[in-house]
């Protein structure tokens, strides 16, 4: 049975490599930075939609989310639907203004945008630092999630799974760059979509229809079919926190923002908004509902995180299970490669090139350095994931929250508040980072709220206060920083 599961998985990995080679060869002569990190701003609407959803939907929503839905019931599906507006919100708010400015400044990374807007080196350093820390944490979580998945579903030992996983991602991101990353995202998005729909149908079928499944859940615990969830976990402050964390806050995620400067034209963004929203809806509903209803089929799993892989093995024939095991793997891979790329962009573009602008002339060296940085980062994360702590899926949300606390206000106010200046943005970033780290570190929940809410309020306050002490940035040069 194991080979049946493994064969399609191997085929899937080969396909991923093939796409990366294709992307590598498509890379044109000329502006390396623009191409490696942005794919020459060539993304169309379909690819934009897929890459955005693929980056949102990470291990936490594919493994942790359905696991939680299994444990707490249909209420968790309600929670997951909070994410529905994420695509139209982030593409709409950052939107065309962000894209127009990015082209005007010739910006390649988020930090280019921040520098062009606030004209502060210190701010770029701070941004780079927090980005690297948060991404290293988030990527480690994803690696562990991936290896665990292979462990439960295919019986591959944790270490081996980690190696397969880590090496393939580091390689294809290092050589293919952004183009490979979004191409893979598009394919992975399709795999996820197909896998989700099939799994949901198979689960409902195996449970003997929706009526029977829900009736069974009610029998196990009436709370499982209530919007409050099992153990009444889904309280008002809990729901409110999720509205901020996975809906309003996603505007501030750097790897979302960078996708907002890489699309081809306004038609692409229009299609991306509609398609992306549909895909998020189907994936969130399908995966979580499958997890929740899975309890009617397999009532006594002890580790909820294993529900999706176990369900796949239970309700699908082995070969199909192998194909759709690729779906959560796809989700994890696409999230990591986006973050990996963002991290190496930060190192090469924002730190190295800022320190030594003359290095820009040597394209060949730059190419090698970038691939090397990506590869080394990937290996670092691999090492970090070697001895994993238990129950770490929440770490992912933690890293997300930290990024939102640091980046949300400088990004949004920088775009829409003309008087925003560097002093305000710096105090906002510092306050956000410090308050979030402290609150999350001591696990303090003021009035039951997730640390993200007080941190965002504090960093907004810090922005308005700090802003009084700074000068407005001088009129921005149209030529932009470099390249």
């Amino acid at each position, binding site marked *: 049975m194991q080979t049946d599961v493994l064969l399609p998985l191997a085929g899937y990995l080969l396909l991923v490599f093939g796409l990366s080679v294709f992307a590598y060869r498509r890379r044109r002569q000329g502006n390396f930075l623009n191409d490696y990190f942005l794919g020459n701003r060539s993304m169309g609407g379909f690819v934009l939609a897929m890459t955005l959803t693929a980056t949102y939907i990470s291990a936490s929503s594919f493994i942790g989310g359905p696991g939680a839905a299994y444990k707490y019931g*249909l209420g968790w*599906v*309600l929670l997951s639907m909070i994410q529905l507006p994420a695509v*139209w919100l982030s593409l709409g708010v950052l939107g065309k203004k962000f894209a127009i400015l990015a*082209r005007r400044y010739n910006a390649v990374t988020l930090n280019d945008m921040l520098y062009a807007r606030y004209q502060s080196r210190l701010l770029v350093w701070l941004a780079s630092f927090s980005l690297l820390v948060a991404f290293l944490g988030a990527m480690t979580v994803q690696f562990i999630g991936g290896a665990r998945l292979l462990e439960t579903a295919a019986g591959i030992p944790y270490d081996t799974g980690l190696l397969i996983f880590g090496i393939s991602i580091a390689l294809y991101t290092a050589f293919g760059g952004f183009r490979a990353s979004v191409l893979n995202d598009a394919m992975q998005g399709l795999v996820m979509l197909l896998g989700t729909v099939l799994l949901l149908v198979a689960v409902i079928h195996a449970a003997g229809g929706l009526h029977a499944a829900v009736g069974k859940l009610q029998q196990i615990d009436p709370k499982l079919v209530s*919007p409050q969830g099992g153990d009444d976990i889904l309280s008002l402050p809990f729901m409110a926190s999720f509205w901020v964390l996975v809906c309003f806050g996603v505007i501030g995620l750097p790897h979302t923002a960078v996708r907002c400067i890489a699309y081809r034209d306004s038609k692409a963004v229009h299609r991306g908004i509609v398609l992306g929203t549909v895909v998020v809806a189907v994936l969130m*509903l399908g995966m979580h509902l499958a997890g929740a209803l899975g309890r009617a089929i397999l009532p006594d799993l002890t580790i909820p995180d294993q529900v999706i892989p176990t369900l796949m093995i239970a309700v699908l024939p082995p070969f199909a299970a192998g194909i759709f095991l690729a779906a959560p793997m796809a989700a994890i891979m696409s999230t990591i490669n986006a973050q990996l790329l963002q991290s190496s962009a930060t190192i090469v573009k924002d730190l190295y090139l800022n320190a030594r602008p003359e290095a820009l002339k040597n394209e060949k060296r730059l190419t090698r350095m970038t691939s090397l940085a990506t590869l080394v980062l990937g290996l670092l994360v691999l090492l970090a994931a070697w001895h994993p702590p238990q129950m770490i899926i929440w770490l992912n949300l933690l890293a997300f929250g930290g990024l939102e606390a640091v980046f949300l206000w400088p990004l949004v106010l920088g775009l829409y508040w003309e008087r925003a200046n560097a002093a305000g943005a710096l105090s906002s970033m510092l306050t956000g980072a410090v308050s979030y780290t402290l609150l999350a570190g001591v696990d303090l929940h003021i009035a039951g709220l997730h640390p993200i809410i007080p941190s965002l309020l504090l960093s907004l306050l810090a922005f308005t206060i700090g802003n009084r002490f700074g000068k407005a940035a001088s009129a921005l040069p149209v030529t932009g920083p470099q390249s």
Partner: protein
Amino acid sequence: MDTRFIQAHREARWAVGLTVAYLLAWVPAAYLPDSAQGFTGLPHWFEMACLLVPLLFILFCWLMVRVVFREMPLGENDDAN
């Protein structure tokens, strides 16, 4: 100010507005209906908040993009596109 920004601001306001509207529709849909099984077999509140409301808002989102959003050049000149 760049005239494109006026339109971009309008679109941003709509995106935020639609999100707030979703929040306002989501709350009553989730907490007012009871937990009895509806015709799909799922509880009434689930049918409303997880099926009907999202479906409606996907439609609204499509309408918003069609009616409010406008195509525009994003580069400074044609070759910057």
